[in-house]
């Protein structure tokens, strides 16, 4: 069994093929098939637990083409990712079964969903960077297609394009990084690259360059500043797609890649510094936008960016393990929040939280599950989000800069605030618009309940995970850090409570103060505007100018130079022409003229006469034949039959 572990993702592939072929007949039942396929992969992966926990590294590889192997590798890191991802994919597909019930284009939807899951699994089990990159790009394609699922809507179509192109910017860097590593070590394989790095075969500057480039890819895929712009727009896709992108695949692929390559990042202080700066900016930057967002899914999208920022900061100060822990916990509670959001939007019919309110009355199960997710992301002790966020804070406090630490604390407060703002606005108080709330079907609630449980308990994975990954020590426990983070979260919650639930503080009174920043944050710092209007426009302009310059000075220069030299040469040849060549030509012309007089006579009377004769004969013949050629098939057949009779008679000797 163990030797065949690399075939374990096959059920997902089988589901993909079934959906691709029979999707039109199966319709939404494709979701169940995908869920079963993913569930099978989940169960098969669980059977690997004994081998993985005993510290084994399962590797299977064979030659793809000379020098490059196709390899599969399951160790502690990829095993836990595999478990989490297949579990989530399976739940999300089960959820889409009801959620997408009456949509059109389900074959396309489910094919791409399952392909998304499959390529994420392939990305996780790949044992070399090339294979990872392939899976990475397939995911880019899937995200493009799924975000633009409602492609009749122009905003959805352009959101898909934006996601694809923005992540592609990062991918170019990533490919460069991979190629730098390949050029330095001659291999794509993780182990070979690591051993080359530890034996000093690659210089530190090469490592710094490669890691920085690969981080560029991660910035694109995991939506870090400044390539975060695609993620808020990705909300145009159906909700299960958002859940998949935010929780299981896509943004987590970037984090996984960083953790996978952490032996390289560890040694490059410069890269770590950059990562930390980017992460710190992202954390606060996104949290501020989340506070003012009015769209359910958009709040969650900004919170994803912010939470990913947490992981990036952790990765920037040697905290691969806290980052991994947060990746896993975040996967659970963000999937929960998104599926819950879908459940609410499904029944209310709009994503605008200003039009919701009082949903809890209708959707008790969804509401309770969402409360668990909200508490978890806010970092309340006892829930999973607290455990990993705390690990990150401790790590930053110990190894990172104090500035980042304070930013993270502040963001913790903001996170609690905007999440509870969301929760109170949606689930409590009075209805703010006329909608008919109802609870979602069972197949949407099962994933919610399971994820609700996971959101509470996934923090308990910390100790088993430490055993799995052979990590003996984490950052030292520090009461100040723990208390301050809890206090920050509580301040945020109380703030939300006062403003949005008890309504003791009426924000309308502060309109004049808030409206300025509100507009600024709701327009996303005008960053998208900046990118589209200034960078893109000037980029086009500058590249046009460069092309023009090249054309004018280099190409035109060559042509003009060639023209000038030809002119000079021709001046010399002109002299030779006039006296030698022209004289010869003139004599020849006179002789030719005489001869042509003779041939002219022959031409007119003999050749032309023959031609005219032939012409007359042909025209006459044509006129005669035209009568027979009347275009009617039966006439032709008649003559055929007459011909056959004649021939047969001749052969038979009648005539």
């Amino acid at each position, binding site marked *: 069994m163990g030797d065949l572990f690399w075939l374990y993702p096959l059920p997902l592939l089988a589901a993909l093929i079934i959906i691709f072929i029979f999707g039109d007949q199966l319709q939404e039942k494709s979701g169940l098939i995908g869920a079963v396929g993913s569930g099978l992969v989940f169960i098969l992966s669980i059977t690997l637990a004994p081998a993985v926990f005993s510290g084994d590294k399962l590797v299977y590889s064979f030659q793809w083409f000379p020098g490059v192997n196709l390899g599969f590798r399951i160790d502690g890191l990829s095993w836990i990712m595999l478990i989490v991802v297949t579990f989530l994919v399976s739940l999300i597909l089960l959820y889409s079964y009801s959620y997408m019930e009456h949509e059109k284009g389900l074959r396309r939807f489910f094919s791409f969903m399952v392909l998304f899951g499959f390529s994420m699994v392939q990305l996780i089990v790949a044992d070399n960077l090339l294979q990872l990159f392939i899976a990475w790009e397939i995911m880019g394609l899937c995200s493009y297609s799924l975000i633009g699922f409602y492609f009749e809507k122009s905003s959805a179509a352009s959101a898909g394009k934006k996601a694809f192109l923005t992540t592609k910017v990062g991918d170019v860097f990533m490919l460069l990084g991979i190629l730098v590593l390949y050029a330095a070590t001659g291999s794509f394989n993780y182990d070979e690259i690591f051993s080359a790095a530890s034996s000093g075969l690659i210089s530190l500057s090469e490592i710094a360059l490669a890691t920085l480039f690969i981080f560029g890819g991660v910035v694109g895929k995991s939506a870090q500043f400044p390539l975060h712009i695609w993620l808020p727009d990705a909300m145009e896709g159906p909700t299960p797609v958002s859940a998949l992108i935010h929780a299981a695949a896509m943004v987590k692929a970037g984090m996984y890649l960083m953790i996978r390559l952490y032996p390289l990042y560890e040694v490059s202080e410069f890269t770590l510094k950059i990562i930390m700066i980017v992460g710190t900016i992202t954390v606060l930057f996104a949290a501020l936008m989340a506070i003012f967002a009015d769209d359910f899914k958009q709040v969650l999208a900004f919170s994803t960016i912010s939470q990913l920022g947490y992981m990036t900061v952790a990765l920037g100060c040697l905290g691969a393990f806290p980052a991994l822990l947060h990746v896993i916990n975040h996967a659970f509670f963000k999937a929960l929040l998104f599926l819950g959001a879908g459940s609410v939007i499904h029944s209310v019919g709009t994503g605008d939280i200003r039009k919701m309110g009082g949903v809890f009355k209708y959707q008790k199960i969804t509401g309770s599950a969402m409360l668990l997710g909200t508490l978890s992301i806010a970092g309340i002790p006892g829930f999973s989000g607290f455990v990993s966020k705390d690990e990150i804070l401790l790590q930053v406090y110990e190894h990172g800069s104090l500035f980042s630490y304070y930013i993270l604390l502040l963001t913790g407060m903001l996170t609690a605030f905007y999440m509870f703002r969301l929760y109170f606005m949606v689930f409590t108080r009075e209805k703010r618009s006329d909608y008919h709330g109802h609870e979602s079907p069972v197949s949407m609630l099962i994933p919610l309940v399971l994820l609700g449980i996971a959101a509470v308990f996934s923090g308990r994975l910390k100790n088993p995970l430490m055993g799995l990954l052979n990590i003996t020590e984490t950052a030292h426990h520090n009461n100040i850090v723990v208390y301050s983070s809890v206090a920050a979260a509580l301040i945020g919650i109380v703030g939300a409570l006062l403003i949005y639930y008890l309504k003791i503080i009426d924000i309308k009174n502060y309109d004049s103060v808030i409206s300025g920043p509100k507009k600024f944050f709701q327009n996303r710092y005008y960053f998208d505007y900046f990118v589209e209007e200034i960078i893109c426009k000037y980029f086009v302009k500058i590249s046009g100018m460069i092309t023009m310059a090249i054309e004018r000075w280099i190409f035109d220069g060559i042509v003009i130079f060639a023209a000038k030299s030809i002119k000079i040469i021709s001046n010399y040849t002109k002299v030779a022409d006039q006296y030698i060549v022209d004289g010869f030509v003139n004599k020849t012309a006179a002789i030719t003229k005489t001869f042509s007089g003779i041939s002219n006579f022959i031409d007119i009377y003999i050749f032309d006469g023959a031609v005219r004769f032939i012409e007359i004969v042909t025209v006459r013949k044509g006129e005669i034949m035209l009568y027979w050629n009347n*275009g*009617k098939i*039966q006439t032709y*057949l008649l003559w055929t039959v007459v011909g056959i009779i004649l021939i047969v008679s001749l052969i038979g000797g009648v005539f």
Partner: protein
Amino acid sequence: MITNSIGLSQYLLLSSLIFSIGIFGVLTKKHIISVLFSIELMLNAVNINLVAFNKFLPDVFVAGQIFALFIIVVAAAEIAIGLAISIVIFRGKGTLVLEDFNLLKH
């Protein structure tokens, strides 16, 4: 008595009669469907020929009948295609009268 009096030549006579009717139909009928019928007649005349030869000639076992089967299959295919073409023509020109078709002239 009667069976004895029917020999090979009677069969051939019958088949050539049918074949001639077929040719006549092909050459004179105005409607495509009728022409297709006539072609069927010609093919069946050939069938009669083949089966008759099979019966009256020695040392041929069932070759003639097998050929007749082939022809039936070919006839079916041919009529299917013929009808399909007729439908397409009808859609295009709104008529199936052969007189109106003189595209071959051009």
